[in-house]
């Protein structure tokens, strides 16, 4: 079993490496056939013909920060549900136990909803 596990992890690594290699080959091909002629105007950030005003790497108001927190909670919920989902067929007590867990988190969503975290402010 351990060998099979190691093999499946290795195959995922191989998959990622090959996908990256595929793009690198395409990049290389493009680098060989495409021209290189940089001019100062060309190297400006893309704007409507004028020099950009200010630096974009400034504080940006990210809305829905509360939602990001909510997502962390619900993603953890989803991960746990996946862990037990396979074994719930024909097991009413297990379904009820997991249902209580889901119900509690749904209450949390309703609470966040009432508190206005889901609104655009």
């Amino acid at each position, binding site marked *: 079993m351990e060998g099979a596990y190691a093999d499946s992890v290795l195959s995922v*690594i*191989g998959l990622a490496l*090959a996908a*990256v290699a595929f793009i690198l080959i395409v990049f290389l091909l*493009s680098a060989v056939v495409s*021209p290189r002629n940089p001019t100062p105007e060309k190297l400006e950030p893309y704007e409507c013909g004028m020099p950009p005003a200010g630096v974009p*790497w400034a504080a940006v108001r990210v809305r829905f920060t509360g939602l990001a927190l909510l997502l962390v909670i619900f993603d953890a919920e989803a991960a746990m549900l996946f862990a037990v989902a396979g074994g719930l067929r024909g097991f009413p007590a297990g*379904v009820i136990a997991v249902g209580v867990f889901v119900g509690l988190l749904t209450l949390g969503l309703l609470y966040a909803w009432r508190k206005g975290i889901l609104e655009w402010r």
Partner: protein
Amino acid sequence: MSGLIWGAIYGLAAGMVISLAAFIGVWGERKIAGRIQLRYGPQELGPFGLLQTGADTLKLLLKEDITPAAVDVRIFRVAPLIVFAPAAMSLAVIPYAYGFAPIDTGVGVLFFVAVPAISVVGVLLAGWSSRNTYATLGGLRAAAQMISYELPRTLSVLPVVLLAGSMRPLDIMDAWQWWWIPLTFIGFIVYFIASLAEINRVPFDLPEAEAELVAGPFADYSGIRWAIFAMAEYGGLVAASLFGAAVFFGGYLGVPGALGVIVFVLKALVIALLMLWVSWTFPRMRPDQLMATAWKVLTPMALIQLVLVGAVISWL
């Protein structure tokens, strides 16, 4: 060790499948979009304009690859890889034929919903490293959108796992019954909408909204680097429709061999066409509507579906 080699072979195959799908898909999409908008679409190059995508690809390959002076070069160059690789990887766990999934793993469904989420990081990095107001705003929008829609998407496939009693895609295919279609229909609708949002197609294309943000996170990318982003989006479309056809509509339906693959691909094609139809018909949403849809409509829908299926599986 053989796992590494097979994984690499499937990875290269996935890259080629996405290229081919983009090649045909872009042509098909432009034709369909043309018809929807009472135009003809491409028709000059080759029969029915079939070679148009080839010419466009060649043009993109021959274009100068500009790296603007202000960008954070290393991140700027790595971002397309981070966006493309997960899209290609997610293709590998889909059950294509009877008893065959390229990477046959017991956590296939989780792999499929988790891995494409990594491309959020790439899109965010692309936007931020461009050092361009539009790109930065687009990247931030993309991150907010993709993490919001990831949750309903994840929850929407869970009912099928509950019904099948396994997360291994091949086991799900074996256990699949026709009455799962009406039972998991709400889940499919949630999956469909959330997938559209994950791959930034039109009703949900706020990150790259060309009227407001030029091309969002990809504004400063040119030539082949830009093409990789477009290809990754096509890969996402292909993967989403294939996986949807597999888990919600039974994939190859137990038909062995090539016939089963054809059945499976035809089903996926219907879902893909439905996605194109939606994206060329509906106007773009507003950001607040976008987030409200994810959290106030889709997530509760997915939870209701979950409870419904939970009630059913107790008696199986």
